């Protein structure tokens, strides 16, 4: 980067949203990987719903699962923003692959890195950071995703040095792949003196007796991402598998979610950009009434608006990431980025499909897949309504 000198005078850098050389090189590398390796597979994976083990292995080899972790735990010594850049570039091509990475790192491995003991970190992070093993986080239950605390029925009781866990978790990403080795679940572990329910997080190494996953859900989108219902029936794990403090599980998870929202925002920006890329290409090539449809102002303006939305959403997530990297509170910025970028991803996907006409409704076209993949972004990791609640609360309402 240029030194902070303008006209021979030292100046303070007021704003700088350029990527540094290393992050730009990473972004380019993932862009190339997505274009060369993921893109040719995306339609087939969407159709079959097969989990892409080979792509995950290749992404592991590139170190994508280890991006935010230090080298001593098998990581790449990067940061969470580097992870966001990788997720954005993958989602430009395929959301299933992008969410597999997002969930494995920010939900599966990050809580261990943040709240685990040294021993837990040494045991789990090298495996998770290499992508050889996937981790999942089970918070949502059939009784509630937004009102997690109120809806929680899963219980864990300490008996003879072991947690005995009973309950059901819904919609858990990466919970049922052949390489899933860890599912951290939240569970009620008692009552606090205040009368509030005590929620803790417990690490469940899998496969394991008492732990079972149902068959894959039939989903609208994210077909090649693994989403399962989990049932725990007298599932026993050692007492030391408690992650973080007893009764701290929920609070800790909420703070993990703030970061996770930035990653989901990055994923949404990627999808929005992918819709834009496809629309520009198609509009230049598709002819109607003797001219490319890009020459109709109605189409060109749609595309211009898609660019405006994508650009704005990217700035919103960069801004949240910037605060995160500086270690400043960023709850509001993360919620804004998540809310805005997921909503514009849905809008861009709808417009891209419109620009593609009938072909946009055909599954083999990327935009049809983007359209189906976009909607969940307004629901997962905090619905749009929940984001608005958070933002309003931050404003003192």
């Amino acid at each position, binding site marked *: 980067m240029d030194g902070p000198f303008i006209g021979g005078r030292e100046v303070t850098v007021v704003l700088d949203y350029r990527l540094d050389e290393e992050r730009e090189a990473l972004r380019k590398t993932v862009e190339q990987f997505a274009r060369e390796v993921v893109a040719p597979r995306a339609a087939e994976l969407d159709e079959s719903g097969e989990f892409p083990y080979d792509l995950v292995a290749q992404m592991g080899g*590139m170190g994508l699962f280890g991006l935010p972790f230090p080298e001593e735990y098998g990581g790449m010594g990067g940061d969470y923003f580097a992870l966001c850049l990788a997720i954005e570039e993958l989602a430009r091509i395929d959301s299933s692959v992008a969410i597999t990475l997002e969930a494995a790192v920010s939900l599966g491995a990050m809580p261990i890195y943040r709240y685990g003991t040294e021993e837990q970190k040494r045991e789990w992070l090298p495996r998770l950071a290499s992508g050889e093993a996937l981790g999942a986080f089970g918070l949502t239950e059939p009784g509630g995703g937004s009102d997690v605390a109120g809806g929680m029925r899963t219980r864990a009781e300490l008996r003879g040095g072991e947690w005995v866990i009973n309950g059901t978790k819904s919609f858990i990403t990466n919970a049922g792949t052949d390489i899933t080795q860890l599912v951290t679940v939240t569970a009620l572990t008692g009552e606090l003196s205040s009368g509030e329910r005590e929620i803790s997080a417990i690490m469940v190494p899998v496969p394991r007796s008492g732990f079972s996953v149902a068959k894959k859900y039939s989903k609208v989108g994210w077909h090649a991402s693994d989403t399962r219902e989990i049932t725990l029936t007298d599932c026993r794990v050692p007492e030391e598998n408690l992650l973080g403090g007893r009764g701290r599980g929920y609070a800790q998870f909420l703070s993990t979610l703030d970061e996770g929202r930035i990653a989901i925002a990055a994923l949404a920006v990627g999808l929005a950009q992918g819709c834009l890329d496809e629309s520009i290409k198609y509009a230049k090539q598709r002819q109607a009434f003797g001219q490319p449809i890009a020459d109709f102002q109605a189409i060109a303006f749609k595309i211009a608006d898609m660019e405006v939305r994508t650009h704005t959403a990217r700035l919103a997530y960069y801004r949240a990431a910037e605060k995160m990297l500086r270690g400043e509170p960023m709850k509001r910025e993360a919620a804004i980025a998540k809310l805005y970028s997921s909503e514009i991803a849905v809008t861009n996907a709808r417009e891209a499909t419109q620009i593609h006409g009938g072909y946009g409704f055909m599954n083999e076209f990327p935009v049809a897949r983007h359209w189906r993949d976009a909607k969940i972004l307004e629901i997962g990791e905090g619905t749009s309504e929940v984001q608005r609640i958070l933002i309003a609360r931050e404003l003192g309402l």
Partner: protein
Amino acid sequence: MNIVVCVKQVPDTWAERKLRSEDKTLDRESVDGVINELDEYAIEESLRIKEAHDGEVTVLTMGPEKAAESIRKALSMGADKAVHLVDDALHGSDVLQTSYAMAQVLRKIGFDVVILGSESTDARMGALAAMLAERLGVAQLSLANKVEIDGGTIRTQRVADYGFDRVEASLPAVVSVVEKINEPRYPSFKGIMAAKKKPVDKLGVADADIDAAKVGLTGAATEVVDFVAAPPREKGTIVKDEGDGGQKVAEFLASKKFI
């Protein structure tokens, strides 16, 4: 083992390429530069040789300042250091002059094996490996889709129309590789961070004992006299199946030497 891999920066094949009207050389400024695709295979092969036999991989690039990006990428894939031959005097050099300049550098830095892609996507001469080997007085093993090193001996498979030849030579040697010899790796973030700290030795013509009069546009043995834009792609042939579709497709493929 001292492995040198030659890496050229070329205009991105995804972008439109142009010649500059003033001196009929390739416009390298206005488009994104990338590593010549075949050179990525050469880099991968050099890293595999290093992993199997120990040693060091040096990237050798001749090209303008901008080519430093490509050097950085090769280093992030895992090469250990680089030599960047960069000098305005080299602008417009043809393949004869390029081979002279690169051979001078190779003499200076030494090598057990020099690996390069069998051609570049911009000039497509495909002659550099042969010229380097000749100038350096070492064996050339061209068009390799497999390389094995065993002590002082190098064995390759050279692809040919009819299959492949098994070729053997003693080191030092120059090897040119074809695609499909391997699957080039994507750099990891750790590699990208490490590349920043790897040494890049910048040499001008004088540093490498290159006679400035023997390189550059004016002294080139070949000259681009004129150029025209490529004609639009011709219409393909459509084979209608009237019972003999298979036959016709087979004839077409045979005429193109695909079968």
